[in-house]
């Protein structure tokens, strides 16, 4: 409407057409899930009493958990934004922060700032950590119903496991905590499978480990269940530097 007032210059310009840049990146989920796998296996099997001692093991156990399950998984989660992965960006980042926080707690215990009680003593202050972890991880499983079975298995077992662990630490019940730890072990094994499945398909350019796609329910083609099948067609400038093509 021309009301006689001066118009800004840009008002006379045509609206620029929108552009969307798609930038390929390597899949961040592999590193994140490897970190989750190793950290969860080490700590869960320790909780289950497969190795170590209740107070002797944590001082030399938490450091790599904080770096691998923590920092590395967190970084992979942040890169998942660029990979346009809503599940990875939320949950890898969240679990990365968990492992860093757990490492910090263990560091404070090693220094003597805090005392961590044994499993059969109630620790409500630690139990509450697992309530949001339970809710958001389980919700991630709901979203993963559209992705693939290995990822769904990771999120469901770990999400439910968090519920048991929360109850176990709240009530001081080592039985509940160990049920949760068993679920974590299953989830960790599924995490290794998922990480390897994604990594090997990307590196070899074809399916090596089946993706576990349920037809009609999940987004990917069931072809992804067949080893040797090609399910991706990367855009590459074959002679260029890394980034313009896939690299080693």
């Amino acid at each position, binding site marked *: 409407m021309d009301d006689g007032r001066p118009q800004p210059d840009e008002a006379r310009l045509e609206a620029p057409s929108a552009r969307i840049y798609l930038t390929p990146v390597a899949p961040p989920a592999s590193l994140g899930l490897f970190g989750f796998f190793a950290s969860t296996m080490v700590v869960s099997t320790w909780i289950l009493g497969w*190795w170590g001692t209740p107070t002797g093991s944590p001082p030399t156990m938490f450091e790599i958990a904080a770096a691998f399950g923590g920092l590395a998984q967190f970084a992979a989660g942040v890169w998942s934004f660029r990979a346009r992965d809503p599940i990875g960006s939320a949950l890898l980042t969240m679990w990365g922060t968990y492992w860093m926080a757990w490492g910090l707690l263990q560091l404070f215990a090693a220094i003597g700032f805090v005392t961590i009680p044994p499993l059969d003593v109630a620790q409500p202050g630690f139990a509450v950590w697992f309530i949001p972890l339970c809710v958001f991880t389980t919700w991630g499983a709901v979203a993963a119903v559209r992705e693939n079975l290995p990822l769904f298995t990771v999120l469901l077992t770990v999400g439910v496991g968090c519920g048991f662990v929360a109850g176990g630490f709240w009530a001081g019940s080592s039985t509940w905590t160990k049920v949760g730890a068993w679920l974590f072990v299953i989830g960790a094994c599924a995490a290794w499978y998922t990480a390897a499945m994604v990594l090997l398909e990307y590196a070899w350019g074809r399916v090596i480990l089946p993706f576990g796609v349920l037809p009609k329910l999940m987004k990917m083609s069931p072809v992804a269940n067949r080893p040797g099948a090609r399910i991706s067609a990367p855009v590459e400038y074959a002679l260029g530097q890394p980034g313009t093509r896939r690299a080693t």
Partner: protein
Amino acid sequence: MLQPVAAPSILGYFALASALIIYGSWLAGWWGTEKDTAAFFPFLILFGGFGQLAAALWGYRARAAVAAALHGSWAAFWLGLGLVYLLGTTHTITVPGRGDVWQSMGEWSIYFAIITWTTAFAALARSPLGFVAQGLLGTASAFAAAGFLDGSTGWEDLAGWFFVAAAAVAFATGAYTMVSGAHDEPVQYEHGDPGVKVGQ
């Protein structure tokens, strides 16, 4: 939009090889005593750890899935192990010595062996040298697991030798990648700033 970057695996393999040769030769008993961990842990943290972490994160942009997974994992290992030795140096914790049972490190070594063999198989698709380096590294981790869990200097010595062998092949892999990059045919302007042309 495709964005070219320098190959991050050069830095990644150089940092990995550097940390491995120091730690592996020490673990094998070629030199030093328990007290020397206080001298070399900063290098493990900063080059083996942060150096590889930088390579891993640039690996995403470079579309290098193996580099991101391998160097990200081993960056975490060196950061964690370096922190263990830091806390040991400050007498905050007691760190087992060579030949002592060290169950937690034995457990970690099991999973690093599994992960590294996985990345080795992935590397086989494009990089035979990378496959050998990672295969040796995964095997070294398995021997280290046996050594730490059993408190056996024999297994630890063997692990140390394999760490050194992995370091040698990792160095060769990084060196080959650096030299072979000269044969890329990059998209660039002849007179642009760095990034618009290749190099500085």
